[in-house]
């Protein structure tokens, strides 16, 4: 029989050292499951740490470069190989260590800067992202450029050493809490829609930038409308080539899709079947008392497991040089649909208790609000239909797609 390939000695050593370091350095409070938004650290200039442990944990991880383990050390990363990063993630999961920081800078902008940024831009922007000092938001969608993103109209006029930006963005997640924005702007209104766009960075405190939150059906929202009125942006903050921002945007979107697709993975949350058992109760054989619900959950968990394994395989394939960037659309599409299905089943299992909107008992309707929030999963970051178009065109090469 073929057996598991034994881990290479140097990786085994790395695994042991990593576990020991985490045991020593991850505060016990940071090894408990996340139960509220306060438990999540987003960092940034305005950030107030919810506990000393949250602060200490971020500082220690950042000092190791392990908030961004695979980035080069000179840009604040850990310089780890793909295999080492996988081991770090596994060991963190084994100890239930929380992510030290969540950040669009880490997930989306960082990878784009690493690919398209100049050395100066990398030195200026990447280390603060790695340390969780600057919180970023994404200026992509506009009122008439959602799924058809490339028809965006926000204009940046060339003024020699700087641009003047005018226009409006929408669905800007956490724009009211962010320090800087990475933004798509039209720099050549005459060009065809994909070829006149540039990718720029600027501080949200620049005069002329205003934001306004959007209330959603969940009663809460991370989303904002964002307005730019004669905003001055230095030319040195143009990423990539002028009018070729679409390439940067597309690259960044593949990372956004992987991030959103990741919500298809339940992570450390309770398995649905166990949740249902607690809510609905058990029959004489110890099975969920509602047999149809139990069957739906079981079928859901088959798909969930297959999805999780595909996330793992996608990473393994990328490491083996067999990855396909368009595969992020596969993960985004399916992850979003799975997360919606999971929450529908949770609402079904929760019954009338799950409908509680305002009470400490329901943690202010946490489940109901989460359920409503998931409806956006198949809209944000490119709708499910857009993802299917991408798969049809870039993977299956279907005509006219």
């Amino acid at each position, binding site marked *: 029989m073929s*057996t598991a390939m034994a881990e290479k000695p140097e990786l085994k050593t790395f695994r042991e050292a990593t576990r020991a370091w985490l045991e020593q350095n991850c505060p016990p409070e940071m090894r408990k499951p996340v139960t509220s938004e306060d438990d999540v650290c987003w960092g940034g200039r305005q950030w107030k740490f919810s506990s000393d442990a949250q602060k200490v944990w971020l500082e220690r991880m950042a000092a190791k470069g392990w908030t961004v383990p695979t980035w080069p050390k000179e840009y604040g990363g850990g310089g780890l190989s793909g295999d080492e990063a996988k081991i770090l993630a596994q060991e963190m999961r084994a100890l239930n260590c929380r992510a030290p920081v969540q950040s669009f800078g880490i997930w989306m902008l960082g990878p784009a800067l690493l690919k398209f940024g100049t050395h100066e831009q990398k030195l200026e922007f990447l280390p603060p992202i790695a340390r969780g000092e600057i919180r970023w938001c994404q200026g992509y969608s506009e009122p008439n450029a959602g799924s058809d993103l490339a028809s965006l109209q926000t204009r940046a006029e060339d003024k020699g050493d700087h641009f003047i930006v005018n226009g409006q963005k929408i669905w800007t997640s956490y724009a009211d809490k962010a320090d800087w924005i990475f933004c798509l702007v039209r720099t050549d209104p005459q060009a065809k829609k994909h070829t006149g766009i540039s990718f720029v960075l600027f501080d949200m405190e620049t005069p002329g930038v205003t934001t306004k939150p959007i209330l959603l059906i969940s009663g809460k929202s991370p989303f904002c409308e964002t307005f730019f009125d004669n905003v001055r942006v230095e030319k040195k903050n143009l990423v990539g080539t002028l009018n070729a921002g679409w390439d940067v945007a597309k690259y960044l979107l593949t990372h956004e899709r992987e991030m959103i697709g990741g919500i298809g993975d339940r992570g450390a949350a309770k398995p649905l079947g*166990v949740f249902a058992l607690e809510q609905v109760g058990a029959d004489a054989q110890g099975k969920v008392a509602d047999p149809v619900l139990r069957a739906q959950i079981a079928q859901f*968990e088959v798909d969930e497991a297959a999805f999780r394994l595909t996330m793992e*395989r996608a990473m393994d394939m990328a490491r083996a040089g067999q990855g396909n960037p368009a*595969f992020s659309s596969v993960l985004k599409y399916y992850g979003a649909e799975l997360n919606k299905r999971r929450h529908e089943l949770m609402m079904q299992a929760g019954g009338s208790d799950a409908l509680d909107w305002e009470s400490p008992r329901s943690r202010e309707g946490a489940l109901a609000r989460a359920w409503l929030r998931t409806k956006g999963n198949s809209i944000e970051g490119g709708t499910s239909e857009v993802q299917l178009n991408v798969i049809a065109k870039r993977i299956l090469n*279907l005509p006219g797609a």
Partner: protein
Amino acid sequence: MALVLTEEQGMLRDSAKSFLADNAPVSELRKLRDTRNADGFSRSLWKQFAEMGFTGVLIPEAYGGMGLGLVEAGVVMEEIGRNLTASPFLASNVVAATALLAAGTEAQKQAILPKIASGELIATLAVDEHSKHNPRNTALKAEKSASGYTLDGHKTFVLDGHVADLFIVAARTSGAKGELAGVTLFLVDAKTKGVSVERVVMVDAHNAARVTLNNIPVPESAVLGKVGEGLLPLNAALSAGRVAASAEMLGIADEVFARTVNYLKERQQFTKIIGEFQALQHRAAHLYCEIEFTRSAVLKALQALDEGTPTAIGLASVAKAKAGTTVTLAVQEGVQMHGGIGMTDEFEMGFFMKRARVLQELFGDATYHADLLAQLKKY
């Protein structure tokens, strides 16, 4: 272990791919069906298949095999699925071989495994007694006798039963139908007096049989593993069979999908290539996703069984359930998107649909495995 094939596994896949595509494409299955071939598979192809070493893939070198694992067997199964190759590989070289490896005495292994590895002996597992798979429902009786046991009862859906030389029979030495304990595995020579085998011509033109054991005596040495504890090796054999069948379903789904996408790029209706229609593009893209998720689930289950990880049983159920629903969708879309031609016997799409239906049923269908998974997770 990374969820990608190693270089050696990739080479094995390439050699299985070209060998089966050259020697055993779907047209060979059609020939077997149309000529009402008595064996239901090609003996000469089987000999070549054995010469390539495929029949010994799971069997250790000490018993004349290649000493590889289920991942490698899965690689071969996927290509078998792509070509709808009829052969006793799944029944004999995967399922029966696994049962013998899991529970056989040294003497049993030495007597049987080299012959399975060389392809000269065909062994098969006889477990089901009802139209729906459930090993707990084993009722075939094994009564202690002076010289051994007497077996009495019947089995159904026995893969390659009518060409098998050896049956591995799940029988009840104690307890009642529905109970976990009390099942024992027996090795039964097909030529034993009182064993009658009825070949069943099935929808997919592959082999299965109904087997009746009419008070047949077997010696003590026919017991495979421990008396009353047959469920352990039975589960090992069934897990291997389930995951191998999943790999075959993956091969079918992948092949059918490739043919369908090609058709979408060629066929014109309403003065357009039909692949331009978004209604069809979205369905094709969705199916692509399902096949990719199935591939991950199948590879993971194969690896986990090889590594003997504790979660392997659950992963096998995930693979079988996922592959079953995916291949069903793939063949249904295959027929629908091909339109009328997809319904004709002359076209091969129907062959895939029929084989998929049988594999979906074999060793537990998708709902059976979703239920098993729920039981494992205790809800």
